[in-house]
C-alpha cells in the first residue's frame, strides 16, 4: 500500500471502523513508513483535542417554545378521515368517470355484424311464420313467378282515373 492509498484508509483505521483486511494493510504500511506513522500519531492526538469542545445544552425554554409552535400548526380536519389521500380520491373519481363514459359509449358492432344480421333475418322469418305456414297463400305465390322481373307493375285503377282526369 502506498502513502496515497493509506490516506483514504487512515481515518477508518484510527476510528476502528476499517475492516480487518484494510486494517492489516494500514498497519503494515505504518510500520514501514515513518512519515505516515507520525501523521497517524498526530491525528490520534487531534482526536483527543477535538473532544475538548464542550457540549452545549439547549435553553430551559426550548421544549416549551417547541410545543407552542407545534400547537400553532393547523390540525387535520374531521372529513380528512374519509379522504385520507387527496390524490387517491381524485384518481378514484377520475376512474369512476372514465368507467361511466366508457359504459355509455355506443357499442362497436363491427365484429358482430354478421351475427346481428342473421338474428334480424331470423326475426323476420319468425314474424312472418304464420304467413309462410299458410298453404293457400304460398300456393298463390307461384303465379307471381311468371311476371317478368323488369316489367313495370300494372297501374292501379285509382291511378288510371287520375291520369285520365289530368289529360282532360
Amino acid at each position: 500500500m502506498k502513502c496515497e492509498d493509506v490516506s483514504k484508509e487512515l481515518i477508518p483505521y484510527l476510528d476502528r471502523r476499517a475492516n480487518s483486511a484494510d486494517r492489516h494493510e494500514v498497519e503494515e504500511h505504518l510500520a514501514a513508513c515513518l512519515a505516515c506513522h507520525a501523521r497517524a500519531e498526530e491525528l490520534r492526538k487531534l482526536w483527543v483535542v477535538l473532544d475538548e469542545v464542550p457540549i452545549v445544552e439547549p435553553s430551559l425554554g426550548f421544549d416549551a417554545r417547541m410545543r407552542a409552535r407545534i400547537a400553532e400548526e393547523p390540525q387535520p380536519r374531521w372529513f380528512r378521515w374519509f379522504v385520507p389521500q387527496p390524490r387517491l380520491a381524485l384518481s378514484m373519481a377520475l376512474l369512476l368517470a372514465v368507467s361511466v363514459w366508457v359504459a355509455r359509449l355506443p357499442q362497436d358492432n363491427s365484429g358482430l355484424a354478421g351475427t346481428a344480421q342473421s338474428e334480424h333475418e331470423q326475426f323476420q322469418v319468425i314474424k312472418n311464420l304464420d304467413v309462410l305456414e299458410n298453404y293457400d297463400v304460398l300456393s298463390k305465390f307461384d303465379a307471381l313467378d311468371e311476371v317478368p322481373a323488369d316489367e313495370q307493375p300494372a297501374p292501379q285503377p285509382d291511378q288510371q282515373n287520375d291520369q285520365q282526369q289530368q289529360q282532360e
Partner: protein
Amino acid sequence: MLDVKAGDDESFNLLLQKYRTPLVNFLYRMVRDTATAEDLAQEVFLRVYRARKQYSPSAKFTTWLFRIATNLALNSVRDNRHHQMDVSLDAAPADEDTAPLQLPAREMRIDEHMVERDRADFIRGVISALPEKQRVAVLLHKYEEMDYGEIARILDCSESALKSLLFRAYETLRVQLAPLVSPPARRAGKEAHHEM
C-alpha cells in the same frame, strides 16, 4: 417515528427529548451562535412534524433529521455571510492604503488567538473555518459518531469520496490545531533534540 406518523404526539415529545441536544450542538458548531442554533433546531423539528405523514421507514430517522439540519445550517451560514459582506461594503473604509500591510507569522496568530480565547472556542473556530462539506463531515463523524454510509447519504456522496473528504478535513485540523496537538514546548524540545 412510526408512532409519530400514526399521530402519537407523546412519541414526538420523546423524539424531541432524544435528539434536541445533539441537534442543537451540531447546529451550534455549524453557525457558532446559540440563539440561531436553537431557532434552527426548532425549525428542523417543526419540519419533521409537518412531514411526519410522508416519513418512509426505509430511510434512517437520524439521516433524515440531520439532512434537514445540514441544509438549514448551510443556508443560514450563507445568508449570514452575505449579510456580513453587505455590512462590510457599507462600512466606512479603513486606512487600508496608508497603513502598512502587516502579516504576522502563522505561529504568532495562533498564539494570539489562544491568549484571547479559550481552547474550546479556538477549536470551534478552526472547525468552522473548514469548507462547508468538510465541516459537516467532521461534525457528523467526530461528534455524532455516525457511520460512513449515513454521512455519505446526508452529504449525497459516495463512501469513498467521504473518506477522502474526511482525511483532507482532519489534515487541515491537524495543521491548524498544531499548537494544541503538539504544544510548542514539546516541539521546541524536539527541535533541540534534532540539533543535537
